[in-house]
């Protein structure tokens, strides 16, 4: 059987999503490293390299729209292309959140460290793992891991709550710590949002593979 003429273009789209996934993973990794090491130049690197993520988002969207117009995809092809478009939006937002973290790092570096970071790196690890997992489910067309990713997201929510409570306690005890605590609070929030986007990707993959909508469903119904 002759290969479908647009098969190569679908593969290229797959590779571009993978590339974008790798880019945002690198951005998060760098922004978290920069937070731990109070590294201003690495933070700036994250901010500057976000343009590449944005460019790739536009390129992927353009490819998807062209494919829809030209091949008029149906069924699995249609689900693949529309999912790719949604995933790029999530990945682009993840990239922006890495930039937000980097910007808070730059603020924090100008002030003495409030406390040793313990839970934030843990939360960052979960965020990185969740993105890696969700991108992998897309590339491998594996819809079986959404439950696992969902439980990681719950873990992330718990850590974010722990961090929030701890920082709130510190700020209440000593209001002069607010300028140093607030950026940390926001960073925890950004990391938790990254996990939410990774969860979105995993749920979109379930639709792509099984044509089943699991968004907004309780865990036992996913």
């Amino acid at each position: 059987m002759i290969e479908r003429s647009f098969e190569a273009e679908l593969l290229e789209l797959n590779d571009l999503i993978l590339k974008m996934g790798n880019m945002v993973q690198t951005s998060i990794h760098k922004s978290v490293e920069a937070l731990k090491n109070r590294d201003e130049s690495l933070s700036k690197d994250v901010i500057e390299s976000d343009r590449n993520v944005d460019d790739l988002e536009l390129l992927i969207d353009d490819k998807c729209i062209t494919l829809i117009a030209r091949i008029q995809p149906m069924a699995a092809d249609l689900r693949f292309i529309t999912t790719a478009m949604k995933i790029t939006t999530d990945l682009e937002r993840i990239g922006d959140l890495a930039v937000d973290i980097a910007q808070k790092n730059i603020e924090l570096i100008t002030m003495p460290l409030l406390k040793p970071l313990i839970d934030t790196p843990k939360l960052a690890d979960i965020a990185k793992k969740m993105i890696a997992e969700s991108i992998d489910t897309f590339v491998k067309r594996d819809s079986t891991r959404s439950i696992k990713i969902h439980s990681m997201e719950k873990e992330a929510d718990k850590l974010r709550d722990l961090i929030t409570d701890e920082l709130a306690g510190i700020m209440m005890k000593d209001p002069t710590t607010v300028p140093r605590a607030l950026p940390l609070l926001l960073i925890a929030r950004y990391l938790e949002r990254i996990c939410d986007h990774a969860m979105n990707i995993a749920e979109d993959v379930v639709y792509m593979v099984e044509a089943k909508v699991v968004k907004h469903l309780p865990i036992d119904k996913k």
Partner: protein
Amino acid sequence: MKNAIEVKDLDFYYGKFKALSKVNIDVRRNEITALIGPSGCGKSTFLRCLNRMNDLIPGIKAEGSIKVEGVEINNGTTDLVDLRKKVGMVFQRPNPFPLSIFENVAFGPKIHRMAKGDELKDIVKSSLQKVLLWDEFKDKLNKNALSLTLEQQQRLCIARLVAVRPDILLMDEPCSALDPVAIQKIEDLMRFLKKDYTIIIVTHNMQQAARVSDRTGFFLLGELIEFSETDKIFTAPSDKRTEEYITGRYG
């Protein structure tokens, strides 16, 4: 009863060749049902079973039940003239008679002695209105039908059916001889007509099936593989063979 057609366990043979195997389908009234599938899969054969057009071919045999508006038609007692009045057919190429526009539309009602005089004129008018040709041709009803564009000819053929007050319109690739603009106009007409008729269309054009129909059936090697809502067939088909066909992986 919401079904215009109910088919149960239909087998169909051309001589020894089995062209349809155990076809079961309920066609809902006032919906557009599309039948898709590769060439030779049996979709046109199936369509022609619904008004017994296959009877014109020697050596055919149809087994099973076909009910049109609740009445069994796959038997020796069906009045075929009456059946074909109820279940009209539009073909690939428009086939108007080499007569005037008026005579084309009046032909059926005259043959069936449904009307004459002013009543006949009213039927011609309302039929041409139904296919949106009246405004353009009300002063040119004596114009030869063969001088119309292909799309207008196809509309006229639909008006010719409509004139004998059918319940069901069968369309066998009605747009395959038409250009894209004409196709869109015929599709618009189909949507306009479905409030009054049940329409079944056989098409090779999957985008057309996706655009125009409410439900879609996929035929393969004489079997109805899958039949469900058009939205579902083209986004999330249940059967792997449907998926392969509509994404171009079949064959």
